């Protein structure tokens, strides 16, 4: 009696052995997917989002942190590379990554414990391949941000692992396993398939400069690849349909984090929570005015009036006109020079339709124009006409059903172009780039002026919203330019096609261009806004962010030594 009196089982939770069934393992696998959005795991979702607007775009000079100086000021350290190891956003990103890894390891561990005959071989294989895909993704995220990271897998018992061993081979191995073992078709759209693994494997090769391997696998993805529901990979006809929830899980979506609104939680933790700060301020979106595109980015969308090709160098000369220091009620005519039509699906700028919300009003929607510049982001916004379906207003900032695309097919083509160029096939590289440009040139995918400017919900006219000019590279251009300039053109195309999608900083580092590009940017942009006046990128240091100090402190082993070693330049 006495013994039973003190027996108190855990309430409201499950034990490992209860989960050692097919359904249990599948639940754990869904939990491993559930960590993809970095949300609701104890840290600021805007830091942990796989969309990486902070570590990819703010660090990569495509975007200002935005808002006002003191709001989320720890991001300033990313914007101007003054970050120190005690900055909490580092620990957030680090821990969120390992939370994802832990969940994938739990899938693999419990899968081993499922009794013989309780799960069929094909299912077990699929589950382990999905888990290893996700694990490799989480490691990829950490690898590109922190550089030197410890490897923990389902066999690891000592959690204090050193961070000086190469993890690329292990990431590669996981993606290779996933590619070899995943089905090509999945019954559920959100599951990764064989081709997503192939594309990510190619990306992994590219990050290691293994161009031949990358080329080979991208070839396969481009020719054979298809989505989980069997749509052959391809570019969506209209550029803007790539981004918004209305059209998501399209043929271009290779690996996307699924987002859901109004899902019964009365919260936006599954609704693109990581972008919650990134809406215009003083606006119907309420909050919070972060993630403002830079003038430098906007200028890169200028095109040649006749060829419709970008200015690869000196694009900051004769900049795109902006409305800095022009009062909301003072007249303003937007820039009339030739522009790549993708600009106005990437950047919200004054006088141009902001989806169906009306013309962007300039300073009236900005929290501090002098600080963060005159622009707002656009790819992450929802449409007014469909907000009931695709937006969620149950939190202090909006949520959306826009997926976060980790890899989309345009990205695959541009990565393949890089691999081809590096491997010497400039013609093929150019053809990939031209596929991208041809899609952008489709006029039905351009932004058009409103049919009635007073009633933006009435739809659009047939008049393009600005002076759009875009053309393909004429045959033989890349070959004529040679490898170096061809690569520059591919890189430039990558910037404007994938702008504000969280890639830029990692690309710059990968290309070895970060120091030059970013310090040029600081020199140019700091004359326009006040936020990055003390920005400076230091090579051989700022390519990677510091290992969180708190993690170094917690990695001290029995002999009193830290098993984690700080990245160069941060000690």
């Amino acid at each position, binding site marked *: 009696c006495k013994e039973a009196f003190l027996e108190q089982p*855990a309430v409201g939770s499950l034990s490992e052995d209860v989960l050692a069934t097919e359904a249990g393992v599948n639940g754990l696998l869904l939990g491993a997917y559930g960590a993809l959005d970095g949300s609701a795991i104890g840290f600021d979702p805007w830091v942990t989002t796989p969309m990486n607007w902070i570590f990819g775009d703010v660090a990569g000079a495509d975007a200002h942190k935005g808002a006002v100086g003191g709001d989320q*000021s720890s991001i300033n350290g990313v914007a101007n590379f003054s970050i*120190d190891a005690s900055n909490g956003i580092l620990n957030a990103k680090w821990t969120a990554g390992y939370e994802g890894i832990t969940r994938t390891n739990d899938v693999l561990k419990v899968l081993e414990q499922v009794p013989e005959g309780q799960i069929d071989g094909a299912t077990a294989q699929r589950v382990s391949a999905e888990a290893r895909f996700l694990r490799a993704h989480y490691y990829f995220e950490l690898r590109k941000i922190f550089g030197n990271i410890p490897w923990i897998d389902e066999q690891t018992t000592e959690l204090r692992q050193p961070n000086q061993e190469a993890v690329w081979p292990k990431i590669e191995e996981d993606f290779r396993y996933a590619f070899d073992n995943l089905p090509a078709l999945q019954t559920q759209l959100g599951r990764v398939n064989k081709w997503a693994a192939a594309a990510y494997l190619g990306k992994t090769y590219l990050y290691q400069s293994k161009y031949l391997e990358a080329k080979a696998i991208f070839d396969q993805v481009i020719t054979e690849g298809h989505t989980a529901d069997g749509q052959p990979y391809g570019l969506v006809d209209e550029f803007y349909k790539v981004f918004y929830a209305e059209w998501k899980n399209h043929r271009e979506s290779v690996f996307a984090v699924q987002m*859901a609104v109004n899902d019964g939680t009365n919260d936006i933790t599954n609704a693109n929570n990581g972008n919650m700060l990134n809406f215009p301020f003083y606006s119907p979106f309420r909050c919070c005015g972060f993630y403002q595109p830079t003038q430098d980015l906007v200028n890169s969308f200028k095109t040649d009036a006749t060829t419709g090709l970008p200015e690869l160098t000196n694009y900051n000369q004769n900049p795109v006109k902006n409305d800095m220091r022009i009062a909301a009620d003072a007249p303003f005519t937007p820039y009339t020079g030739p522009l790549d039509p993708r600009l106005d699906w990437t950047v919200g700028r004054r006088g141009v339709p902001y989806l169906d919300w009306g013309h962007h009003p300039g300073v009236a929607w900005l929290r*501090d124009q002098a600080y963060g510049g005159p622009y707002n982001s656009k790819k992450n916004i929802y449409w007014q006409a469909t907000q009931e379906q695709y937006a969620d207003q149950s939190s202090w900032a909006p949520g959306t*059903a826009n997926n976060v695309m980790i890899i989309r097919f345009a990205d695959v083509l541009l990565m393949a172009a890089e691999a081809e160029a590096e491997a010497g096939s400039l013609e093929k590289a150019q053809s990939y780039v031209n596929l991208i440009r041809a899609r952008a040139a489709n006029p039905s995918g351009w932004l058009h002026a409103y049919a009635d400017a007073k009633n933006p919900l009435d739809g659009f006219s047939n008049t393009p919203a600005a002076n759009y000019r875009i053309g393909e590279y004429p045959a033989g251009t890349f070959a004529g330019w040679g490898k170096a300039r061809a690569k520059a053109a591919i890189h430039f195309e990558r910037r404007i096609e994938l702008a504000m999608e969280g890639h830029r900083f990692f690309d710059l580092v990968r290309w070895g261009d970060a120091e030059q590009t970013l310090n040029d940017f600081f020199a140019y942009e700091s004359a326009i806004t006040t936020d990055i006046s003390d920005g400076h990128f230091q090579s051989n240091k700022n390519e990677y962010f510091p290992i969180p100090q708190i993690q170094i402190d917690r990695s001290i082993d029995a002999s009193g030594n830290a098993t984690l070693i700080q990245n160069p330049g941060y000690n």
Partner: protein
Amino acid sequence: QEQITVRGTVTDSLSGEPLTGVSVTQKGTNNGAATDAQGKFAIQLDRPDAVLLFSSIGYKVAEYPVGSTAELQVSLEFDALGLEQVVVVGYGTKQKKDLMGSVAVVDVAAMQKQPASSITNQLQGRAAGVTVIGSGRPGEEPQVRIRGFNTFGNNAPLYVVDGVPLQSIASLNPNDVASMQVLKDAGAASIYGSRAANGVIIVTTKSGGSRISVSYDGYYGSERPKKGNVWDLLSPTEMAELKWMADPSKRSADPQYGNGATPRLPDYISPAGRMEGEVDHSLYNVDPRYTDPESLNGFYRIVKANQAGTNWYEEIFRPAPITSHNVSVSGGGDRSTFLFSLNHFDQQGTLINTYVKRQTLRANSQFKIGDRVRVGENMAVSISNQMGGGGNAIMMAFRQQPIIPVRDIMGNYAGSFGSDLGNALNPVAIQERTKNNRNKGNRLLGSMHLEADILSNFTFRTQFGGELYAGYSHQFGYPEYENSANENTVNSYSEQSSYGYNWTWTNTLRYEATIADIHQLTAVAGVESYKNEGRNLSGSTQGYFSFDPDFTTLSTGSGTQTNASSRWADALFSTFARVDYNLMQRYLVGATIRRDGSSRFLNYQYGWFPAASAAWRISEEPFWDIAWMSDFKLRGSYGVMGNQMNVAPDNAFTTFTGNRYASFYDINGSGNGIEMGFQRGRVGNPDAKWERNINANIGFDAVFFGGKLDVTADYYRKDVVDLLYNPQLPGTAGTATSPFVNIAQMTNQGIDLAVNTSLPIGDQVKFNGQLTFTTYRNEIVKVSDDAQYFEQDSRRFSGAYIVRNGVGTSIGQFYGYQIDGFWNTQEEITAANAGAPGGTYQAGMGLGRFRYADRNNDGLVNASDRTFLGNPSPDFSYGLNLAVEYRQFDFSMFLFGVSGNDVWNQLKWWHDFYPTFGGAKSRTALHDSWTPTRHQATAPIQEVNATFSTSQVPNSYYVENGSYLRAKNAQLGYTLPDRACSRLGIRNLRLYVAGTNLFTITGYSGTDPEIPGGNTSFGIDEGIYPAQRQYLLGLTFTY
């Protein structure tokens, strides 16, 4: 056997007045009686040679042999020394002179002069070794700590009310309390074993006497908030000047202040920056009760600038009444006593819509059944309505810009909507929108007991008691429209309910004997079981057609319905014993032992908690002849106390959970539905066991000058080993809750001192003084095998922490960069960089920004140069109660102070740096900040960017000395002379006026230096609810 009846009268030896309620017992038995209103008693004795003991609180015990006297005349001597005062200790009582452990006996009557909703509020400064920190928030339970820290988790003491252990006594009616003792050391508290480590506070409620008595206690008062610019904020004109100074780029085109060399205050802030005549009032369109979030887009707000400036503090704080009525009826006879009381307490907070209202009903009664059996019960029911909250409103009041008025031109709320007005919310709106919210609690607290005398020296007692409680709350979330960032645009409603109970069943057998007149032996042995269970249930929905509180239920919304529940349960099973031996009233030794089993542990469920104590009353020795020191006792104890409170009930288990927010996923790509997924919730530790708090205490009790002065002093040391702590696992473990393991260590030492004096001055003046003095020194000896610290409280530093609990330091210390002045010249910066490896001395350097100290002299400033910046624990705290009686008048004053503690003033972050959100700024920012011509400044340069070298990381700028001395209470009373009373037919009547928090002497710049906080992170001020000045009028009478 022949029964004889002895009668008699008991009187006061000085006045000759009859004494009522004196306990009369036959020595060596439990046979007893009590005196009636005329001081008369009658007792049946079974032997003619019996000896009778007469005892009454405040009087020395008297022994009378019965002999042949038929009518005993007994006079009791007033016990100036209080040595024979009966003190309730664990599972029994003792006389004060027999105490060996450290027990603080609280002067309940003096304590009750403090008007408060609970006795824990009144306890501040009244008992040496007890630290109480509260705030002005009505109904908020203050933090009570006995002798510093014992654990990283909950440090709250165990309360034992009429023998029933409880975690909180918030619902107890302060007027019902008869006595209160604080058991501080192992010698006194160890008998409570596993729950003793944080100290034990024993409360006994009143019971009836022999005569019928009706008494009333009541007061009415008013709390008066501070007035004026309490946060030292800038006026609208000065705000504009600051903007022009910090952000010259605004001078060319500012949305509010125009353009030009000097800013111009607008007449309207919405539409931004307009002057009179430029606004078309007919465009105004705001529907404050909109139900479609999309209609927000069509609103046209017109808000006039408050050019004189809104004082947001004065807008949300206003004078507030406090009322208490207490009626009690008591009485009894030979065989039974009863007490019945009713209390109505109503305190409005000075912050709008904060209050606590409580009704308490109590019935205590005791019966004798035959000569050997006694039964009794104590029962109290309380019903409370409480709205505490308001922290957000206070924070918004110090953030909201003064140019914003409370309301717009049509009387709807005004806010930060407009341009460049920051993103704070309207604090008046926040509080007014809570007016239909309710938070109710009902609690039944009580126990029943039966006591039986077995044989001649044994008493068996069984007691069953506990509490049964239920809580209910509901809130409505109004849509906002007035802010720059409206956080709620969808109206919502939520309800929560909880219910729970806990019970304790205690069975003890007590033995008492006096052998050969010089050996006194008492022993108690018992078993106790405890069970605690409860549940929470909550739900919410959105989209109400009407906001009428009569309409809103969980069923009448139109949005998604959510529900949630949780439950908890735990149990303890214990056996315990105590033996005390007293030789010749001089040499005392005692021992206790307890074995506790807890459901929170799996592999090591049981723990043993022994303690021993001894005392030597040197003054009883024949050689003692110090006339001015009539009593002197040395005491010492050593023992082990336990703790298990901070371990989650499921700590032993590794668990997985499904969580809609964190582990569910839209695997179908539907865009609006999520599928169940699991994540690891907790890493289990089946090997967790009891924390052991090894406690040594040495002290003395001394009485001087025939009772005019007495001193109790104790020195203690506590070594907490096997301290349960959940070390932060490396990030590679993910985010599952890490288990508590017995890994940390901590020590505490300190001195408690209590001095009482009672001095007649002449014939008519009586002076009473009580001083309590408390110190504690805490040191963390070990955190875990690898971690040297754990951090807490990031506030607005985005993951860089203010508080570090580190090995070798005291709990809760502030941590960060030490400021070493400003960068005054470019040359200083260049020189510092030149000497720095890598070429950068410090991130974000710039003229007028902080220069941080390079603590490790490696030529640059980085994370390893952070240091401890301050300690929120005081060097000492003290309470001083002074009371004077002159004829019918009495005056008392209670002072309380702490000294040597630091406060982290987080308001400075909001006020003294221009870029920390566009909210209200301080006069320091404008008038005392660094400029190229003002190097002798307090704040750094005002500029647009927040940097590592200014407001982005915790540094020494925020640390202030938090010492203060406060007049907690002063009271002037008048008691009606006896003759007047008898003419009115009453026994006693007293009228008084009182003031609380009359003055505070402090160097701290915030609104109140008394700042509550958590267990391992406290003393951080980010807009506390200040304790305000209060005036009261009170009346007490007995019939």
